[in-house]
């Protein structure tokens, strides 16, 4: 039996979760989480950890004089791909207006996930 200790990032409580793995590497027992999200997180974190990536890129033509628009991956992406996502965003500049939820880049870094704006910039 192998045990892995994790800190859940699902909410500010940050529960300490213990995941027990049996000989074949299957999850045998998850303890320490206070809610369902924690269990889901623990399963993913020991098999294929993921994160939502947030960043920002430049805009041009903003009437309100904004220079950047914040963005996020529309859903979580493999943790190992974070830097690739960031690399693909480098040098990107988008025209205004931009609205929350607008797709700024499709299928970023081959993850199948789009990058969407998280702020309205007129």
């Amino acid at each position: 039996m192998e045990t892995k200790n994790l800190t859940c990032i699902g909410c500010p409580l940050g529960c300490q979760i213990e995941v027990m793995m049996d000989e074949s590497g299957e999850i045998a027992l998850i303890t320490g989480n206070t809610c369902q999200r924690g269990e889901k997180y623990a399963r993913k974190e020991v098999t294929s950890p993921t994160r939502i990536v947030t960043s920002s890129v430049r805009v041009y033509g903003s009437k309100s004089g904004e220079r950047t628009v914040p963005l996020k991956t529309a859903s979580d992406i493999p943790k190992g791909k974070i830097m690739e996502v960031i690399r693909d965003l480098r040098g990107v500049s988008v025209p205004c207006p931009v609205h929350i939820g607008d797709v700024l880049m499709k299928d970023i870094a081959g993850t199948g996930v789009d990058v969407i704006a998280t702020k309205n910039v007129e």
Partner: protein
Amino acid sequence: MERTAYNLIIIGGGPAGLSAAVAAYDAGERSILILERDTRLGGILNQCIHNGFGLHTFQEELTGPEYAQRYIDKVIERGIEYKLDTMVMSLIQTEDGLKEIMAVSEKEGLMLLSAKAVVLGMGCRERSRGALNIPGFRPAGVFSAGTAQRLVNIEGYLPGRRVVILGSGDIGLIMARRMTLEGAKVLVCAELMPYSGGLKRNIVQCLDDFGIPLKLSHTVVRIEGKERVEGVVIAEVGPDRKPIPGTE
């Protein structure tokens, strides 16, 4: 000077001010004015572009600007009046029992307002370097975490390429990740206390994910450089939080 009268004036158009305005409106108040010194509503949330907001209020995970927009929409839907780019200069109690506010904006110039009630929603301020008593010259390149956050996320500048973070509060941790993503090398995050003041989830996803070391019971004892910061000296502190000589 003529006073413009409102029942309720809210100073600050950030999360506190916006939700106060919405709550007052929904309780029946119609004479409301929000005064905001920045050029946009939303306050500090505009620069908090990371996710994790709104779990309790909206049962979803939003970024700061998305969370702010929910409240901005509520204010606009209700037709609540607000003035941007408007700085409050004074707030006094007048003899007629009202509160009098003097404010100024580039567009409207000086204005005199009166209110039956005032809500202060101006947020908090960071402790500056001066307040922390770190000796040395005053070189460029030393920022509070919140200032660095504004520079990166709103102005679009990276404040430095080799970074040391003093303090492990949530904004310090979040900026460790943010500046790493923007191409900076974050060497270390030093924390005076024997524990971090930040959330555990931020230690995991902002430091551990990127291999950034957290040095507990450590602080900056000296900042090197005269015009531009060249380095810092970090030392371990004892239980009395004073640097231990010889650990620099």
